[in-house]
């Protein structure tokens, strides 16, 4: 009798995973437990993938922001760059980037396994794919940041080369330092306790510093600096640019809240922080621009929104909503000064403000994730954050600089002055973006 009961219990508790939850089999405790795990796993996949799709949609946002903030004569070119940095970047990330970033890493400096998604081919674990899907759109985000800063003067073929290198090498290697252990890797920086939940540094600063290197190497657009004074070159469609910002904001919910890569309740705090920081960023930039320029500046306010989003990206999961407002507000203020400083003092020509939004506010956000840490702040925490910020700059800026210089010396980085004056659309793609509309004389200067 005793035996019999024990047997039953044993079967119930242990053996029955064999039966498993499926069809009409008699349910068991252990089977249920398995089934629960399966359902949770399904939910995790669901959320990770939906979030990845939203982050993918940010590509549309970047394309629209960059097209809207630059001149009509270069719109086709900007769009082609955005389309191809995703397309080539994803293939490069599939071939090597993912392996460098998340493969087994003996040194803590880069991974060495899993090229060409071979992990999946080996194990058939679908999580490899879901995780890759989420990571590839992050790589594409880092890559696409640069196109805005180098807009209206970069050779298309040269941009394609850059695109492959950042998605395949520069981004993943830094990524492995901070995020490698999310999969099979292990990075030296995460080992120190570096906080960058969704990538203020890993994605945005990396993109931003590459953009800085590119903008320096390529030099300003013709007519941007006359006798050492910065000139305004307004973008051709604020409406399209603003649409891009709204799309980015929408996608950013996937970017930040999706970085749980699990369907859990942590996502709520992240979503709220993301919202409040974006709002405060827009507000901060509007107020500062109003004070400084006498009128609430639309392009600065749009930049401020993105600055708030970049600023909260590192700390979205470990700061309180009140802090998120402060982080966003300061990001909105910082971005205005950064744009002016880079444009007028450094005389680096960044048509869309990518360096300020992603580079500078990425650094700010990473620092803020330490300073406003809800669990308390120590000197060590702040120190590691600063280390991470510095490491990103020191890794990305020089390598990107060399890359752009190399391209420049070989196939050339910049289009001819004639082509630039006429617009890259004709020169590079043989097409104008808006053939049905007249173009303003002053916009072609």
């Amino acid at each position, binding site marked *: 009798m005793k035996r019999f009961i024990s047997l039953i219990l044993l079967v119930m508790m242990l053996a029955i995973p064999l039966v498993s939850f499926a069809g009409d089999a008699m349910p068991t405790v252990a089977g249920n437990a398995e089934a629960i795990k399966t359902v949770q796993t399904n939910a995790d996949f669901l959320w990770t993938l939906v979030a990845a799709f939203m982050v993918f949609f940010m590509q549309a946002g970047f394309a629209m922001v960059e097209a809207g903030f630059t001149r009509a004569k270069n719109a086709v070119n900007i769009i082609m760059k955005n389309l191809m940095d995703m397309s080539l970047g994803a293939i490069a990330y599939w071939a090597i980037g993912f392996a460098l970033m998340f493969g087994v890493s003996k040194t803590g400096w880069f991974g060495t396994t899993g090229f060409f998604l071979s992990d999946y081919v080996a194990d058939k674990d679908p999580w490899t794919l879901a995780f890759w899907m989420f990571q590839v759109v992050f790589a594409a985000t880092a890559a696409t940041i640069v196109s805005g800063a180098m807009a209206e003067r970069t050779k298309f073929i040269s941009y394609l080369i850059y695109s492959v290198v950042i998605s395949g090498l520069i981004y993943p290697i830094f990524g492995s330092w901070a995020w490698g252990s999310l999969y099979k890797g292990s990075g030296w920086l995460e080992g120190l306790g570096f906080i960058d939940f969704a990538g203020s540094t890993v994605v945005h600063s990396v993109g931003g510093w590459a953009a800085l290197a590119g903008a320096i190497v390529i030099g300003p657009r013709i007519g941007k600096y006359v006798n050492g004074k*910065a*000139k*305004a*070159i*307004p973008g051709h469609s604020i409406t399209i640019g603003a649409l891009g910002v709204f799309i980015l904001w929408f996608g950013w919910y996937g970017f930040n809240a999706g970085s749980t890569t699990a369907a859990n309740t942590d996502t709520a705090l992240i979503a709220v922080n993301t919202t409040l920081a974006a709002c405060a960023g827009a507000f901060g930039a509007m107020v500062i621009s109003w004070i*400084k*320029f*006498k*009128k609430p*500046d639309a*392009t*600065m306010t749009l930049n401020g929104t993105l600055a708030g989003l970049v600023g909260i990206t590192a700390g979205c999961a470990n700061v309180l909503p009140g802090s998120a407002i402060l982080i966003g507000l300061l990001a909105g203020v910082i971005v*205005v000064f950064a*744009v*002016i400083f880079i*444009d*007028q003092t450094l005389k680096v020509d960044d048509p869309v*403000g990518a360096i300020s939004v992603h580079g500078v506010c990425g650094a700010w956000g990473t620092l803020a994730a330490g300073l406003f840490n809800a669990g308390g702040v120590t000197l060590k925490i702040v120190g590691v954050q600063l280390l991470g910020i510095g490491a990103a700059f020191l890794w990305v800026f020089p390598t990107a600089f060399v890359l752009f210089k190399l391209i420049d010396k070989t196939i050339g980085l910049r289009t001819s002055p004639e082509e630039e004056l006429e617009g890259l659309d004709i020169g590079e793609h043989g097409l104008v973006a808006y053939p049905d509309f007249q173009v*303003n*004389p*002053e916009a072609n200067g």
Partner: protein
Amino acid sequence: MKKIEAIIKHFKLDDVRKALMDTGAIGMTVIEVKGFGRQKGHMEVYRGVEYEVQFLPKVKIDVIVPSEKLEESLKAIRDAANTGEIGDGKIFVYNVEQCIRIRTGESGKEAL
């Protein structure tokens, strides 16, 4: 025949059109232009950089009228377009040597 070129403010277009039609004009052509004269552009700030909007948008009306209608037409335009403020615009008059209606081949005044 004379050609009158009037460069006016956008929002006066409708008034000028009506005034001209009251003088018996039955056709005209308008073109979007940018220009400056006494009225200079203004300074704006774009992303922290001050810049001058040198050319302001204006509308140019071309109307060809029989010579004997010239004075009447000029007065009509002036009265309709005048706001008394800077930037109201200018009127220029040219000689037209010939005029042809494409559809019928008529020429001269009949073609107007």
